[in-house]
């Protein structure tokens, strides 16, 4: 089953205007790496950029297994940029 991934406006702009994606993935990392904006989510070492927050069904993945959190196939994943800066 596919999971739904929703991205914020700036990433949607970089993905041709698309805000929502249906992807097949076994874990959160796989779901994010399936996106056309994966280069904006991960650095060159393959680490999730520190100011990128990820929620699975409204729960912060940091409270679970991070981006190694397993998926059953029906979840909604949201990418949210940290609120910071000016």
């Amino acid at each position: 089953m596919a999971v739904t991934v929703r991205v914020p406006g700036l990433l949607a702009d970089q993905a041709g205007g698309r805000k929502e994606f249906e992807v097949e993935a076994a874990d959160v990392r796989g779901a994010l790496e399936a996106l056309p904006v994966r280069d904006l989510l991960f650095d060159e070492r393959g680490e999730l950029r520190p100011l990128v927050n990820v929620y699975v069904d409204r729960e912060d993945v940091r409270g679970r297994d991070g981006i190694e959190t397993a998926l059953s196939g029906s979840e909604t994943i949201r990418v949210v940029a940290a609120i910071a800066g000016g």
Partner: protein
Amino acid sequence: MAPSILVGTRKGLFVLRGDEDRREWTVEEPMLSGWEVFHATEHDGTLFAAANNFVYGATVQRSTDGGKTWERSEGLGLPEETGLTLEKAWHVEPGHGDTVWLGAAPGALFRSDDRGANFEPVMSLIQHETRDRWNPGAGGMCTHSIQVHPTEPDTIYIGISAAGVFLSEDGGQTWAPKNKGTAADFSEDDRFPEVGQCVHKVLLHPDQEGRLWQQNHCGVYRTDDKGENWERLEDNGLPSSFGFPIAINHLKPDQAFVIPEDSVRGSEGEVGGGDRVTTGGRLGVYRTDDGGQSWELASNGLPDPAWVEVLREGMASDRRDPVGIYFGTKSGSIFVSPDEGGEWIEAARHLPAVLSVEVAEW
């Protein structure tokens, strides 16, 4: 074709469209909103932007349809063996043919041979033998100046804060420091080291062979022998050693423009960079017409009083006759002189903080 000004700002990329006289300007809606555009340029109908976001990192973005759509370049990242990670994309410089260069932080250089679709790190520079003597500037260790010889594709000059000027004459396979005569006034033990100078901007004159100009943290310089020797110039009439941008005239090799900040002079043993606003409480552009042997204030039309900042990428010149000079301020104004500094026009105001200015006939 009327000129356009590409303005990189903290809040996206703006384009100003001018009339043929370069006196009337209109501002278009911003592109790349949400991105800090450190530098933007145009080449053969393609727009390039070194665009950074504090969440999503450093990118180079390209548009072939006038900015309606953008594609990110691939390959931007530093190999694990370097121990470095890419911080910011600083400056995009089209080379000959399909080659495009990217200067980045920390002290990095990338090369593309497919018009910017893909980049590869230039390891010969990134792992330069002198790297352990480079220092980061206040804005990070940035490769900000890339000057490609107009007729010799393998000859490239780069400027890095604070590593100095380097020259490659083999297409980037090797790099030689070219800093003799440029001071590191902030150094306690060696004011004239081989590397470690805080170069702010380097420009190669397109027609006068061997001539480059440099605005440094510690002075303004000119070389006539491809960087083998630099002559320090600010004691010839400039109010300060410190500043960021410099502009030149492609028709008049002896003409250059700087915007001094602070009120310090390296010849008096002082190091600038403490204030970082335009000297004397005015927005003062200084011009030389004799290769830096004398400088005069060329600020007719510029605000006074004013305490303004202009960044290293914030000044440019066009290829017209008379040459137009353009610069943008961190307070969001764009100024244009259509007559080589004779008078200035405020082409735009109330933009976000200006990070870069380039001129395109596009």
